[in-house]
């Protein structure tokens, strides 16, 4: 009887494994990959919403070149090993173009699989510089500027506008935060206008950062650049305020959002953060935000604008190329200018969107305001 149990088990396994969704013919398959569950879901879900909105609108108008667009949404939880699995899933099921992934690490893990299958991926949020600048991933595009750009901006702002002389740089040891910190450090050292007096990683999620703050004061830093996300930033700020350490604080675009304002509360006041250029005045952007609010009853989350732009650009390329041929799509993405929520964009030779960039923002009265 043991045998039958085992056989049943294996049979069940097989049935599950074989239950591949029937391949619907004649649609354009648009993959959406990112973190939709887990800690980083807040960064991935807006992209899913954006893609759904764009595709719903296009399908309502009859699709592209007479074909409906079909979304294939997969969750990578921002984990590299899951990303490779969902990427093979997309490839296996015949995806034509992918919007994603969200995190740089997951993107790096997945992009090779798309490359092997000649599929283009456009990320709204993977800001790790080598993704485009190394030239290794010809099939990768993004609608957000790379980390080194914002780090350069942050460094210049610190030394030129705020005239800081002794700069402390902290980071959360993560891919994103440390990348930002490293580029800022290099830029400051190269600029020669200020000294980096402290450069250190902190343990994300730790209970207490008071030691590192004491050190900051001990080194006599007159400005702090932080590479990382909002929870650690607000914890640092809260402790700095309690210890009455008042130095300007500059963070990357990971801080520029409601998450940071919500959690840091009054500690956020006066904090600087770099972030994508203000595009909220663009008519397309205003419309997209209004539509979103009408549909979900709240403001869209992080990377929503970039995701809208990525989806629109992808589908525009399909339209211009007249199909989903890899070479034709590549040509279309690099030549055809398309109007999006982040402005009129096309992609440069390496895959970065031309015309997107960063500005510096400051928190004033509980909201980010662009510093002119």
């Amino acid at each position: 009887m043991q045998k039958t149990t085992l056989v049943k088990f294996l049979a069940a396994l097989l049935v599950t494994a074989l239950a591949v969704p029937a391949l619907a013919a004649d649609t354009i398959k648009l993959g959406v990959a990112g973190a939709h569950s887990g800690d980083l879901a807040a960064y991935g879900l807006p992209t899913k919403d954006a893609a759904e909105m764009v595709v719903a609108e296009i399908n309502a108008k009859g699709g592209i070149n007479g074909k409906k667009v079909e979304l294939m949404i997969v969750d990578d939880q921002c984990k590299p090993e899951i990303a490779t699995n969902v990427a093979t899933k997309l490839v296996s099921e015949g995806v034509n173009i992918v919007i994603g992934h969200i995190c740089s690490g997951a993107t790096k893990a997945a992009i090779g699989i798309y490359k092997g299958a000649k599929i283009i991926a456009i990320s709204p949020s993977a800001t790790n510089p080598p993704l485009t600048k190394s030239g290794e991933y010809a099939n990768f595009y993004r609608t957000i500027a790379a980390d080194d750009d914002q780090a350069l901006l942050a460094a210049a702002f610190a030394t030129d506008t705020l005239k800081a002389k002794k700069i402390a740089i902290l980071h959360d040891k993560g891919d994103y935060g440390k990348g930002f910190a490293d580029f800022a450090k290099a830029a400051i050292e190269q600029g020669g206008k200020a000294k980096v007096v402290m450069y250190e990683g902190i343990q994300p999620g730790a209970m207490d950062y008071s030691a590192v703050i004491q050190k900051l004061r001990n080194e006599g830093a007159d400005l702090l650049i932080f590479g990382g996300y909002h929870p650690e930033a607000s914890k640092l700020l809260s402790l700095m305020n309690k210890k009455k350490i008042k130095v300007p604080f500059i963070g990357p675009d990971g801080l520029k959002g409601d998450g940071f304002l919500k959690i840091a509360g009054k500690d956020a006041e006066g904090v600087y953060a770099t972030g994508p250029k203000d595009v909220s005045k663009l008519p397309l952007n205003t419309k997209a935000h209004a539509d979103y609010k009408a549909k979900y009853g709240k403001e869209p989350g992080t990377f929503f604008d970039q995701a809208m732009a990525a989806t629109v650009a992808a589908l525009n390329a399909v339209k211009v190329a007249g199909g989903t041929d890899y070479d034709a799509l590549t040509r279309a993405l690099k030549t055809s200018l398309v109007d999006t929520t982040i402005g009129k964009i096309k992609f440069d030779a390496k895959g970065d969107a031309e015309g997107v960039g960063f500005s510096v923002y400051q928190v004033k009265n509980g909201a980010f305001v662009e510093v002119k």
Partner: protein
Amino acid sequence: MDFQYLFELLCGGIVKGSIYALIALGYTMVYGIIQLINFAHGEVYMIGAFVAFIVAGVMTLSGYSGLTVLLLAAVVAVIYSAAYGYTLEKIAYRPLRNAPRLSPLISAIGASIFLMNYVQLAQTPDFLPFPELVPEFEFMAPIERYLSSADLVILIVTTLTMAALTVLIKYTRIGKAMRATQQDLVMARLVGINVDRVISATFIIGSVLAAIAGVLIASRTGQINAAIGFVAGIKAFTAAVLGGIGNVPGAVLGGLVLGIAETLGAGYISSAYEDVFAFALLVLILILRPAGLLGKAVKQKV
């Protein structure tokens, strides 16, 4: 040598260490009695902080403020943590009292994962801003670089709590029963001590301490999420082992030593390796003194 800096770091280390100590007491007391690592103790601390956050949030939005909010939030948090600690023991540990040693430990890990995800689902996986419940005292201004108002409150409350605990263990009926049970569970049962009640009481007391620690630390760092219990729990457990698990003064000493070691390591070497210092210290001490700083080398009964 910059003594001012050293002193700043030491103060920070003591504050951090006293929080570790408060949580470590819960581990050590439970271990002392039933030789179980209550892996889910950190989650009880986290739940305390969450309940305080919710009470404080509701009250603040209904227009209350100041000390009323702090006290009520703390009291409700303590009640709920105690209730969770009690329930946890009943469900996850009591049925395993006579099981092989690994079973309750694994059950504890399971309970920890369950509670963390329960809070994540019921509330949110995101970080939440914890209101600053401790006001800024004027008289602290001159020494703020060493000790902030919140730090002062932490030190006072932890000292009082530990004093209360000492009195409880030394002089009350339940305290004596706890000590008897710690010496020899079977014998305690023979002389008529209701061991189940003692164990429940131990869990409740440990949970109360954890909740107090949760409210204090959350109002200091200004944020909470469902994962804070895991991080704090591991550190506090390390502190308990460091001091000699099962030993109440050991937990306090272990907490302080760990807090100071981490702060000095971060201040003089690098904060990137803070956790490495903590665990390296643990390994070192266990190799040199396998029973911890104050633990007695227990001769196993053969």
